[in-house]
């Protein structure tokens, strides 16, 4: 895809929806998650171990979701944007074979006491089984 530098801050309004992003989770995704986030806890790479703990299968970790939220936000805001705050709350497991849909809404735009232009966002992920498998609150700075 072509990357844009920055969204126009003045064009952002409360209630705006960000373009959805769809991601197919495969076993390869889980391998890249383990490698990329340096997380060798067996629940993310050993299906028998994960299932013994009542999970459907091996599942994505917190750090992967943090990365996906940052990608989703910066693809909308542009590569000159900078994440200022991030919280993620996982409500369900993301397993191989799942289709994740990432969606986001603008909660507020504001300028802080240092003159930085900030956007507060509500970001959520659904899978093919249920909505809101991940809830996230984000603040991103637009130059």
């Amino acid at each position, binding site marked *: 895809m072509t990357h844009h530098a920055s969204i126009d801050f003045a064009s952002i309004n409360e209630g705006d929806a960000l373009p959805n992003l769809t991601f197919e989770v495969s076993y390869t995704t889980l391998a890249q*998650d383990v490698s990329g986030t340096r997380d060798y806890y067996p629940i993310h790479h050993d299906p028998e171990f994960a299932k013994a703990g009542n999970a459907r299968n091996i599942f994505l970790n917190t750090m992967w979701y943090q990365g996906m939220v940052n990608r989703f936000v910066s693809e909308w805001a542009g590569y000159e944007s900078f994440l200022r705050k991030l919280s993620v709350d996982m409500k369900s497991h993301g397993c191989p074979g799942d289709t994740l849909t990432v969606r986001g809404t603008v909660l507020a735009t504001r300028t802080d006491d240092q003159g930085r232009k900030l956007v507060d966002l509500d970001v959520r992920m659904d899978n093919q089984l249920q909505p809101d498998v991940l809830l996230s609150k984000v603040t991103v700075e637009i130059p």
Partner: protein
Amino acid sequence: MEDASAALKAELEPFLNKPGARQFTAIEIEKQFVWDYCSAVEDGNPVYWDEEVAKKSRFGRLIAPPNTLMTLNRPAHWLPKDQQDKAEEVAAALPPSPQAQAREILANHGFTTVTVVNREEEYFEPFGPGDGRLAMEDRFVAVSDIKTTKVGPGVFFTYEIDYYTERDNRLVGRARNVTLIYNGSGATK
């Protein structure tokens, strides 16, 4: 429960807001680390990948996604025995962290099982390849009254970790972790 909460808070008070000794991440922030992380979520942001675009951007250089704090803090995958021993010696020589001491007090009261309720990260400045490792400094910042929860009696215990660059000691991020530390044997059926 009110008296017990007040007594527990008085015991924890000497450790409140006291920073622990700095500890370093096991690895340095390097380009390949950034690319491996971005590959996992297929993030092609050019300020992580393309030196030319990154140099012309307001960051002036390649940076890491700011949300890699937790990933950078993962331990080494494997170390030779002598390196492992050395790392353990360095850790053992550090003074006890006030946050760890506060947790010991909670354990003495039967609050031993920890579950993370919420983690929020705040990013103050960009960091990236060339900044060396990250140094981390933790402190316990809040404790609730003793609560009755469905998993047993427990307290909400909040601690923060500040992250500094090794190269120039810039405060680049802060993680705030709210945990529930409880006594599982007191769970209601």
